[in-house]
């Protein structure tokens, strides 16, 4: 189970980072959201995986570690505030710059897409 969990965290991180590296604000926002899932799961993992043992006293025989849960709980809410802030920032940038590119302007094609091959490449 642990291996699958770790693999999922890895996949979420990969997808999140890939999207954050895109050039449009909305992709970056989605990337950040994926990344924050990954981070929350990663932090949650520090309490190890345990089933049927919620940290509610008197409800089960042994309890899981409640501390990472408390940290992740606030992290989820703060993560929402951050996502919201970035989204609104993206909208504001689109409104003010007229483009939803992360740099506020679209780079010239010659520098990004159709770069001629240099010698040695």
């Amino acid at each position, binding site marked *: *189970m642990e291996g699958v*969990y770790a693999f999922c965290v890895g996949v979420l991180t990969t*997808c999140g*980072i890939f999207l954050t590296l895109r050039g449009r604000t909305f*992709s970056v926002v989605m990337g950040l959201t994926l990344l924050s899932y990954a981070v929350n799961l990663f932090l949650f993992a520090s309490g190890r995986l345990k089933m049927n043992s919620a940290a509610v006293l008197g409800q089960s025989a042994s309890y899981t570690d409640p*501390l990472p849960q408390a940290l992740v709980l606030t992290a989820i809410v703060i993560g929402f505030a951050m996502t*919201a802030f970035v989204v609104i920032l993206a909208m504001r940038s689109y409104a003010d710059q007229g483009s939803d590119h992360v740099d506020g302007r679209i780079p010239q094609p010659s520098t*990004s897409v*159709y770069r001629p091959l240099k010698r040695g490449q």
Partner: protein
Amino acid sequence: MNLLWIVLLPLLGTMVPLLTDRFGRSICALSVAILPAWALLLVFMNLGEVFDGQVIRQTIDWIPAMGLQLAFRLDGLTLLFLLLILGIGLLVILYARYYLSAKDSMGRFYAYLILFMTAMVGIVMSNNLIQLWMFWELTSISSFLLISFWSHKSDARKGARMALTITGAGGLALLAGLLMIGNIVGSYHLDTVLASGDLIRAHAAYPVVLILVLLGAFTKSAQFPFHFWLPHAMAAPTPVSAYLHSATMVKAGIFLMARFYPVLAGTDLWFMIVSLTGLATLLLGAYIALFKHDLKGLLAYSTISHLGLITLLLGMNSDMAAVAAIFHIINHATFKASLFMAAGIIDHESGSRDMRKLNGLWKYMPYTATLAMVAALSMAGVPLFNGFLSKEMFFVATLNQSMLGSLSWIVPLLATVGAAFSVAYSLRFIHDVFFNGEPIGLPKTPKEPPRYMKVPVEILVTLCLLVGIFPGYVVEGLLNVASYAVLAGELPEYNLAVWHGFNIPLFMSLLAMAGGLIIYYNRRHLFQFQSHFEEPDAKHIFEGVIQSIVQFCQKTVATLENGSLQRYISLLFLMTLVMAAGPLLGLHENTGSRSEIPLDGIALTGAGVLILSAAATVFWHRSRFIALLFLSVVGLVVSLIFARFSAPDLALTQLAVEIVTIILLLLALFFLPQSTQKESSPSRLSRDLLVSALIGGVIGTISYAILTSPLDTISDFFLANSKTGGGGTNVVNVILVDFRGFDTWGEITVLGIAALGIFKLMARMRLYVPISDEKARPWSNDPHPMILEMISQSLLPLALLVSAYIFLRGHNLPGGGFIAGLITSVAIIQQYIAHGVKWIKPRLKIDYQWLIAGGILIATFTGLGSWLVGRPFLTTWFDHFHLPWIGEFELASAILFDLGVYLTVVGATMLILANLGKLTTSERFDIRGHD
């Protein structure tokens, strides 16, 4: 024990002039003088003990955890400097009252001046190296403010910047040196350091320490080759020059050398560096001073020369020379401060400082002229004035050294040459200004200054004479205790007297005077000779260097920062990869000893859905709506993961947040383009994929290693004390509202700030509202379907009830303020979606900003409440009660705190979503920021 107050009083005094500025100039000056005078009185109260040879100490814990203390000491050397700083400081306050014109802001000037005074007092009284350094830097900063006081003048700004750069750079070197000393000795306490001289001198790093500390001292005391900032600092008002650049700040470097004399001196290296630097500075300063036409320029180079003399004396490694150095500190401070003040009077009353214009002022201001001439004669080292005494001691010291082996005779010769130039420029000061014909083209007719402007000069000149004629009575005691503190041991035999009989030093003095006369008489030839050399302008060179550094930095920044966010992020991630993957490469085992939970079908299905939908989000990320749907699937699976692994609170929170987030992103998508064009090149795509896959691999590996290693946690404390200490059985919630309540309190504050920031960003956002989607399909013409309206309306009470239930049970079962707040928000948002803003507006009159503020305030006051009963911030109170019919129940202050959390969450979420939703409707113009 009142040492702290000696520092504190001037510090408080910094505020005084700002308050009394409006009551007129005299009252302002008077009020400014009170606190330093009080501090001086405190110094005098300790006089007896210090003269008995005691060192008075006072230590107050500052940051005990780091071993930092506020430590003060008062010994002979400190006493001497305190008298100079506070005494001359008071005279300068009086002088500045008359010097400053009505246009200058007197309050600001005095505030800077007293700040500087505090810094100097702090340096000399510090008994801790780090503390000493902090005050040292404060002198650099306050002197920057003082030099640039007339900030409309380019000279003043450039001079101030130069002084700050040079002394600030020296300060950094000094910090490094002091840290190394602290490292060698194992303590930053000055007492300990002063007692470990042998340890430091024997240490392998001694040369480095010495050079670093001396860099600090030499830059501050304007020693060659760092001397060039001092003449440019003369752009400051003259009281500043009299105070900082003759009596105190430039002496801070000298003080540093004297303070560390028992620790650093006594080696050949000290001897070579300090004495040769001093000698070079002495000669250079004396020579250049003669050619300066500006009165203050002459005095500035003369100061450099005299500072060189003191440095040379300290560098000779002889007790006698050290005593002479201390003596010259006193003498130089008195005659040079009075000369600067006299120069200021001349400038003030005649409108010029140019000695080519100033001639024959004797006729106009005989009284000031007399005072200035006495001080100048003292500077020249003429008998019966105090400068003579220390100069004689200096000559004796040069005769008793063997610096240069068999060439040592050259030192007394050079000393005599320096003294001759000193006589020559003093003569020039007297003759050119007060005699030598008539003034040429002065802007106004010179006259005597106001009566009280002369008082400080009179006092200082009287001191020059008293010390010069009765040295044994006036200064010997002070000199003894100060020298005792520097030498930290036996004092050498010396005799302060005007007349020592016919000996070589006297002969050298006579020779210097005759030489000075000859040089001055033949000055035309010298001036002509000097005019062949182009005078290097330190300011141009310095500015050039600064400009080229700035250009280099700009170029570097421009290469690194090209304005592309994608580039920054990829650099950031690459660095993360390097930092995180590096240590992993050395690790051979990534599986711990913890036994793994066996896989089952549910887990595999969940993992499959998660991975597929994450991949689908990426794959279809250019069709944004589809990607968003897959993103929401990921969020739901994450919430299921939490539910499965015993985290019901997290599952509930994640579920609620997921809904809110997706609604938010859908709203945003309404305005933003709904698809993305293909624009990344294949090479870029593969690069990004590689970087993100590598980081994902690293993170996955780390989390696998964590998951399989045995758990070692501090949570047993929380589990054990949750019920007894926090009064709740849901440990996660008790941690949030009690054990780590302070964190939560900070967290909701951040949430509130983020919401307010978003609100501000939305105000005046000019967004075009699309009338159709990208494929030109118009929006539905029934924005509020009736079925949705009906269902959501009837769901509202139910949803609110659920949220109240979740909130109330939160302390003992999964739930709590965060989750309840989110559920309430979702319920309200549903109403917005179903009915629209227009319908909601008259029915729901809640100001969400007030909700946020109220929530944070409730949480804060709950926390503060525990202070009333003498407990730390946010200590929970709870008790059990019994009511008829209802039965046993529990009341805890934590629920009040949780209420604050609840209100803040509702307020923040609604402020964001309701206002964003409003943008899509005709109510959009109601959103206003407070600007």
